């Protein structure tokens, strides 16, 4: 018996020695521990468009212009610009004294190389490129675009927040093939990326860049002074939401970018934790059909979906019971902006009508057709939408082939134009950040250019004309009418089916102050007590 008692005694002693109360935890107010929405596997927000990559890149690189919280572009690396009356010759001047993290000065050579790389990848950049006579450095701090057609949205293009972002990199890095990821992360932004401390999939470390040249204005999203109050920001990647929630409760992390809605009541109960909406522009859920293959090559089948789908089901499945977090969205565009519109969305309004949907389908001879629904089940938002869609499709008489897969496989499969029976697809789900859906410029999913359009390859000349009309619109009134016509054309074509508008939360320890709502985490201006 002695043996066992000894064993119990020692193990008890070990346990109590280990189980010190957590008073010894680091109180460093200069260290921010942040849980991002997803794993950070690269920092190239020009070659790739993942949100998490862009968010990290905002720390490391700076932009010529930057949008404020009203999405108005303000000068950032630039001192200012001049433009001729025709909006064809744009001349920009850099602020003096900007330096990259390797100590080199930022010159217009770097700017030209960076913009050349960005223009290949970005939708707005491609429009600029197509109208470009020359992009030239005049001296070390001055550069100029010479266009052969007017382009009114130049500043927005250079300062927009959605990827590909026009980040300014040293020339040697900017010369990387735009379709290849860069592997050296040197920028002129407020934080340096510590590549040596990077453990991809677990940990990413950013140190304050002492020589960062802060603008005097107050910081507002991507504009103004990006004042950094931390010496170090650590991104802790947590694949398990339950673990991230627990870590925030126990104070092991300071800020969680996207707590799942159902955990929020629990976090709210904790008086050390603050919870708020993350991004006021929210998100738009998407049910994307393949316009190339039956049944959804027939617009009647696409319209039948609009008649049957209940955005309330989708939104409750995605964000839960809290009615403040979602609303019905009879539109393709983010609600609540000056140009929002609900034109032409009649099919999405009113009570859901399975019978009418079935009738339309039987008229088209499509009742009982097979639908290959490909769902990325590793992402909560797409999985929840997929479950609701499977249920809805059955109700209106489709035969559903539910293909459960992960995001990586979905990414490959949705690019296939083959028929569903040969490895293609009929429907997949995604969602678009509301900030990308305020107008057609950053809105890849709205394009209906057929073969060149986003996955699903919708084709509608009306939609394409509407987009061009918006680009040409000289004032707000004209923009508004262009948007209304565009929304109607998109619903007539059913480019895709919006499944609703939803907001996501962010949560942080009360020791932090200065956390703002934005489509991306804004680290500058945040302080820790």
């Amino acid at each position, binding site marked *: 018996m002695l043996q066992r008692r000894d064993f119990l005694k020692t193990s008890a002693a070990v346990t109590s020695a280990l189980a010190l109360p957590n008073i010894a935890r680091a109180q460093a107010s200069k260290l921010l521990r942040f849980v991002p929405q997803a794993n950070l596997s690269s920092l190239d927000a020009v070659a790739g468009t993942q949100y998490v990559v862009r968010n990290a890149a905002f720390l490391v690189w700076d932009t010529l212009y930057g949008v404020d919280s009203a999405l108005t572009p303000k000068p950032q690396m630039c001192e200012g610009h001049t433009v001729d009356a025709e909006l064809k010759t744009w001349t920009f001047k850099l602020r003096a004294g900007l330096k990259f993290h390797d100590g080199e000065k930022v010159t217009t050579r770097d700017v030209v190389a960076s913009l050349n790389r960005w223009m290949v990848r970005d939708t707005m950049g491609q429009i600029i490129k197509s109208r470009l006579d020359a992009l030239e450095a005049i001296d070390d701090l001055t550069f100029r675009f010479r266009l052969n057609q007017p382009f009114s949205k130049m500043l927005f293009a250079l300062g927009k927040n959605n990827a590909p972002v026009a980040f300014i990199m040293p020339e040697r890095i900017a010369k990387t093939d735009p*379709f*290849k990821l860069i*592997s050296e992360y040197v920028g002129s932004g407020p934080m340096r990326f510590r590549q040596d401390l990077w453990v991809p999939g677990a940990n990413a470390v950013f140190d304050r860049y002492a020589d960062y040249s802060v603008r005097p204005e107050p910081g507002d999203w991507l504009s103004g002074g990006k004042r950094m109050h931390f010496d170090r920001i650590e991104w*802790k990647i947590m694949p398990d939401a339950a*673990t991230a929630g*627990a870590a925030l409760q126990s104070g*092991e992390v300071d800020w969680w970018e996207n707590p799942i809605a159902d955990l929020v009541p629990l976090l709210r109960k904790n008086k050390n934790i603050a919870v708020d909406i993350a991004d006021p522009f929210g998100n738009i859920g998407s049910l994307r059909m393949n316009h190339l293959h039956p049944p959804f090559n027939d617009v009647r089948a696409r319209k039948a979906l609009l008649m049957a789908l209940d955005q309330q089901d989708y939104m409750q499945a995605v964000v839960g019971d809290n009615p403040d977090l979602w609303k019905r969205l009879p539109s393709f565009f983010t609600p609540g902006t000056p140009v929002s519109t609900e034109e032409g969305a009649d099919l999405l309004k009113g009570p859901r009508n399975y019978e009418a949907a079935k009738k339309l389908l039987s008229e088209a001879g499509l009742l009982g057709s097979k639908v290959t629904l490909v769902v990325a089940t590793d992402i909560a938002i797409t999985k929840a939408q997929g479950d609701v869609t499977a249920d809805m499709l059955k109700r209106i008489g489709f035969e559903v082939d539910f293909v459960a897969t992960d995001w990586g*496989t979905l990414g490959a499969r949705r690019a296939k134009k083959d028929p569903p029976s040969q490895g293609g697809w009929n429907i997949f789900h995604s969602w678009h950040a509301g900030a990308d859906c305020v107008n057609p410029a950053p809105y*890849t999913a709205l394009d209906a250019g057929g073969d060149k359009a*986003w996955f699903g390859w919708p084709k509608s000349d009306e939609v394409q004309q509407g987009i061009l009309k918006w680009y040409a619109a000289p004032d707000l009134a004209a923009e508004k009418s262009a948007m209304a016509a565009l929304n109607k054309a998109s619903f007539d074509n059913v480019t895709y089916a919006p499944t609703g508008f939803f907001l996501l939360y962010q949560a942080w320890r009360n020791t932090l102050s200065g956390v703002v709502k934005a489509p991306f985490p804004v680290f500058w201006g945040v302080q820790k007590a």
Partner: protein
Amino acid sequence: MFAYIVRRVIATIPVVAIVALFIFSLLYFAPGDPAAIIAGDQATPADVERIRASLGLDRPFVVRFVEWSWQVMQGNLGVSIFTNLPVSKMIAQRIEPSLSLMLLTLTFAISVAVPLGVLAAWKHGTWIDRVVMMFAVFFFSVPVFVVGYLLAYTFALQLDWFPVQGYTPFSISDPLPWLRNLVLPAAALGGAFVALIARITRATMLEVLSQDYIRTARAKGVSQRPILFMHALKNAAVPIVTIIGIGFAGLIGGAVVTESVFAIPGVGRLVVDAILRRDYPIIQGVVLMLSFTYVLVNLCVDLLYTLFDPRIRY
């Protein structure tokens, strides 16, 4: 002895080669596409195609396999598709947490299980034996993540004794944070091993106790405890060591889940993330390394036999 070791090490080559070919072809025919993930959700199909070409993912199977094998033979595991970092570096930075977790798990499992097994054998047929064995079967039957959540909830969130998650690198001057981070995951992962090792220990002890020489010793009036611990445990060491060798692969499997529940930056999480994102070079590198380690561990186990049981010779 030395010749034996050399022979065994050489024998690992075909095994590892088979594993390499198997994993490579498996991944080649898997439908996922890293290019699509890099490009991001909003990228156009044409962009995805360009990225795929720039990664060399559009080349035929044989070309890619031969190229990769050639590199591996030169000790180069390649570069991650996503991070552009060398695979060897990405594995190296993950080894310490995984190794720490496994060592602690094994230490925990052995130090709990062997006494329990001995106890059960000693009190053979009594309620103590039955309780211990029930406990063993029970821990065998609960998934590791359920144990993990229960432990985290009780000991980290409610009692606040241990951190909920994370890993602190080991340091000689202050190993306590390291240990505090690993206690819960090691306990969660160790449960099944406690069960396994306790069963083995009990069974072997029972067998040894029925041997003639023990009976003789007993008959001569040697008191019970010395018999148990001098003779029996020494003989029981062989099967215990065996089970550790066999259990190694299972330990890695369990570690995959444990590392993700407790957010430990180990090899298990690295490879699961890589599989889900189709980061081929990492998957190939890790699996190669793991199967090589497995083979080596079992070689060590075989060598340990000779240590514990001089009757075994090679």
